[in-house]
């Protein structure tokens, strides 16, 4: 058995539900681009069971099947019939725990194509599945619209950056554009696509040491202290993702999510003239010289305290 396979076992589960799980696991396997194979409970990475928990090896994830459809899947439980998202999380988590790279290639290709399209303000395209349902993208207006009967499913894939191998980009003609629903700002969609794609790591066209500069303050980062701190640092001067990790003291996952999301929206760009030729560079203020105002942090903290702004998440 290859090291890149995720293994599972179904213990004391009815034949009908076993068939349902197997079908869903097959879909999960295609979604995450990694083989998922059956294995005995003693060695399987994930064990689905009913009733009494079987013995397993160290590190085995035990998942008890429940019948309460209104119940949220807590740790170690899975309501039946399961939701695809929960199954994906379960197997993607197991893959991550074992250092198994998820099949991000097709998804990354789609994400890159969408990013390029918006970066270049290209012509309207559709991001559709095999039944031509999906999203109409208007890169020039930085908007999107739903398209077709099953557009919501495609939109969910796009927003959550689930592997997008089933989706393809295609140029649209005026007749099709007329059928589009209400247009919405594409930026939240692009932002969440980038954030979610952090599970596959930093966008492969960005090196961890690439210098990134801020073009526009990422308003979608507001409300997250971690992301606001990263934004504040990037506002001051260009940083690489690795420098953001060391300088901001942030978790690498947060930095990668921020960089992917902000790049997707065009809030930040690579500080490389060949990449973002024509874009105006913001007038970064000269870095202040060392002076006699070392009391600034103390001053701001005193204001925070007087206003009741929490300290714990300050930069």
């Amino acid at each position, binding site marked *: 058995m290859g090291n890149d396979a995720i293994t599972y076992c179904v213990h004391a589960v009815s034949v009908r539900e076993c068939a349902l799980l197997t079908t869903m696991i097959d879909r999960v396997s295609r979604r995450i681009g990694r083989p998922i194979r059956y294995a005995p409970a003693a060695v399987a990475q994930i064990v689905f069971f009913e009733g009494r928990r079987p013995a397993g090896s160290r590190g085995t994830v035990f998942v008890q099947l429940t019948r309460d459809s209104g119940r949220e899947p807590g740790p170690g439980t899975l309501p039946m019939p399961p939701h695809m998202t929960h199954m994906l999380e379960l197997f993607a988590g197991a893959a991550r725990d074992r250092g198994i790279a998820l099949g991000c290639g097709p998804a990354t290709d789609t994400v890159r194509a969408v990013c390029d399209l918006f970066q270049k303000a290209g012509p309207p395209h559709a991001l559709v599945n095999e039944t031509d349902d999906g999203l109409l993208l208007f890169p020039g207006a*930085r908007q999107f619209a739903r398209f077709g009967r099953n557009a919501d499913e495609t939109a969910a894939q796009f927003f959550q950056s689930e592997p997008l191998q089933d989706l393809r980009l295609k140029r649209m003609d005026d007749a099709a554009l007329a059928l589009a629903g209400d247009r919405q*700002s594409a*930026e939240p969609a692009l932002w969440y696509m980038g954030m979610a794609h952090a599970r596959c790591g930093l966008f492969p066209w960005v090196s961890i040491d690439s210098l990134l500069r*801020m*073009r*526009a*303050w990422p*308003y979608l980062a*507001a*409300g997250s202290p971690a992301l*606001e*701190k990263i*934004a*504040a*640092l990037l*506002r*001051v001067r260009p940083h690489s993702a690795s420098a953001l990790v060391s*300088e901001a003291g942030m978790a690498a996952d947060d930095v990668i999510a921020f960089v992917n999301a902000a790049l997707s929206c065009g*809030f930040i760009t690579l500080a490389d003239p060949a990449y973002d030729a024509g874009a*105006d*560079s*913001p*007038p970064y*203020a000269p*870095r*202040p*010289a*060392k*002076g*006699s*105002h*070392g009391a*600034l*942090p*103390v*001053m*701001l903290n*005193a*204001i*925070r*305290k*007087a*206003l*009741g*702004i929490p300290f714990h998440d*300050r*930069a």
Partner: protein
Amino acid sequence: MTALKLVFAGSLGTETATAIRAISEIKPLPAEVRPLDHRHLDNGWTPVAMDHGMLTLGDGRTLHLYGTPAGLRFDFPGPIIAQGALGAVLLMDNSRPDPLADLAVCLQAFQSLAVAGAVAIGVGRMNHHPRPALDDYAGALARLRIVAPVLPLDPRDRRDVLRLLQVLFRQIEAMNGDGGTAGPAASAQGPP
């Protein structure tokens, strides 16, 4: 003891006094009056002075909160008020005819703070006037070659005001991030 100041600025009718009231420990002095002939005014009121609020810090210092309209006859005080300020909160009113033009006027008045990263922009009345959207503001700022945070804000809501101030403080801290350094925002000398 040194006094500090923060500036709240906006186009006419952007409720800078309301935002100051949300955080001031004193009742802000009213800066708008109702002239005899107010038919040409948006809301019947016109500013004749700056709004002023205060906050006493734990170390005994005082933070002065100044509110001022930008534009019209109030163009000239901008750079003067900005001098020595920790930073500026620019309040936009999305119900006005051209909020993005208002933004440009405000940024012009507080250019030194904007370039130094010591401004944060709050956009009011977005719930009933969603356009321009936040991404429109981000695009407008990018065209002006200014990078500044833009968030929706209800000036009546203290939490909204504090959230914007926290973002502003982060920007100021990051500018002075290597500790003991100071930019324009740090040269707080006290109120004018």
